[in-house]
């Protein structure tokens, strides 16, 4: 299919002449065919010896390697996901709590704003060596670093959402005699739910990333450690298999959060 330079201008040409179901099937077919073609081409290139199998193993070799590392990889993945879960809960609790606090208290927000922005923008990798120095090896530095990694996007988004809650709603609620806790429970919380969910969706990737980075930098267990030791041992098929496993796991986690998000927003009656 030839790319059309002005496809956006004429959205109702060929795709719309098909029914939505046909279009979806068509898209799925293209996706499946492309992935199959990619894997086949990769297999062919590897078999033909155009690439060094030491660095780029064929998909079939990767699949076999998966059987070899399966048990260790799943153990590592479990370890990583456990640390991620702890860090994620901490990041969400601190981020949402701090966001509600900073969002409601204007003076506090203005006073701390430059510090929060600076910490949010600063690449956390620079403090990683210090955190490892401080907490040693093991699960603690991973949880701490991942929490720091995940908390700032959540904090910044929730702060903004609380700050932008419709003033009129608050005024009306107060006029009708709402108490402070009712104001938060009945007005602020429902208003910020979409942002909190979006922030949680963002935070999980940050937390997982943080755990993996620490495990690669100074790990003795977990998927990051598995990946970096496979790379150091030049075990390319096993490395590719392990990479595919973590990628699949994180895609599944994020897509299920997305699905949950959709459910919740349908339930709230937003489209």
């Amino acid at each position, binding site marked *: 299919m030839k790319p059309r330079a002005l496809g956006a201008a004429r959205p109702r040409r060929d795709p719309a002449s098909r029914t939505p179901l046909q279009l979806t099937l068509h898209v799925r077919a*293209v996706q499946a065919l492309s992935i199959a073609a990619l894997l086949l081409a990769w297999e062919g290139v590897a078999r033909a010896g155009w690439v060094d199998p030491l660095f780029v193993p064929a998909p079939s070799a990767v699949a076999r390697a998966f059987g070899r590392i399966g048990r260790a990889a799943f153990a590592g993945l479990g370890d990583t996901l456990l640390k991620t879960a702890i860090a994620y809960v901490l990041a969400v609790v601190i981020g949402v709590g701090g966001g509600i606090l900073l969002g409601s208290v204007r003076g506090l927000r203005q006073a701390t704003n430059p510090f929060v922005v600076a910490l949010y923008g600063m690449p956390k990798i620079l403090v990683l060596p210090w955190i490892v*120095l401080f907490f040693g090896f093991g699960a603690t530095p991973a949880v701490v670093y991942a929490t720091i990694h995940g908390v700032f996007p959540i904090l910044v988004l929730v702060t903004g959402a609380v700050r932008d809650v419709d003033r009129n709603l608050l005024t009306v609620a107060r006029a009708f005699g709402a108490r402070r806790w009712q104001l938060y429970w009945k007005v602020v919380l429902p208003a910020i739910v979409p942002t909190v969910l979006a922030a949680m969706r963002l935070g999980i990737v940050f937390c997982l990333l943080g755990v993996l980075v620490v495990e690669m930098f100074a790990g003795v267990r977990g998927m990051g450690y598995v990946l970096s030791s496979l790379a150091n041992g030049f075990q390319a098929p096993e490395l590719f298999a392990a990479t595919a496993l973590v990628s699949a796991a994180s*895609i599944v986690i994020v897509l299920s959060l997305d699905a949950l998000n959709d459910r919740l927003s349908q339930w709230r009656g937003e489209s």
Partner: protein
Amino acid sequence: MKIVAIRAAILVVLLGAWEIVGRTANPLLYVPPSAALPALGHLLVLESYPDLGQHLWLTLREILVAYALAIAAGLACGFALGFNRLVGRAYGPILAALYAVPAVVWYPSLMLFFGLDAASKIAFGFLLGFFPITLAVLAGIRQVSPQLLVVARAFGADRLTAFRKVTLPAMLFTLVGGLRTGLALTVVGVIVGEVLGSRSGMGSLINHAYGLFRTADYIALVVVTLVLIVGSDAIAGVIEHRAQRWTE
């Protein structure tokens, strides 16, 4: 005015607390500002790391190459996906799913493939910068009003003119924002790559100082790297501001 004073007070209190803790606690872990500043001085006069300039220059070059590649590939992919509905609908979700993978999982494979030198850092910086640029192009194209394009075509604009006069200005704001995010992530990618395994570059110096428990030097190196990062983002910010004014 008052708020600035409060912010300054918070900063002073933080530095003061750091100084007090740093003086009393384990000097391997805590370096008070009064010790970190001289270390920064030694670093800047090239006493503690005489080849600082080379490492800084290497990191800077890695960032520039990775960013140039990320812009080229990101724009190409973004426009290919954005202007072709079938391609966009087929590959857009795949791209979004890949974006949900914490990028660092690719790094060991890149290190295996490209080795410990600059190439693996460039590849990782490229990978991190590529996604936000591509996604910004896609989002930008979706923002362009179809009516404007129809009108432009009706008045006889050819495709190139319509693209230049309608599509590009309408999406520029989003595009430039994506380019700025892309730069920030490219910088992070290069530095993460260097910290996780390298023989030269700022990340390797940071690792070296950390490995030898030279905590004061480590802090000084972090400060220098931060200046590099903040500087690059400031330049990107100025460009973003210019583009913003141009579209208004």
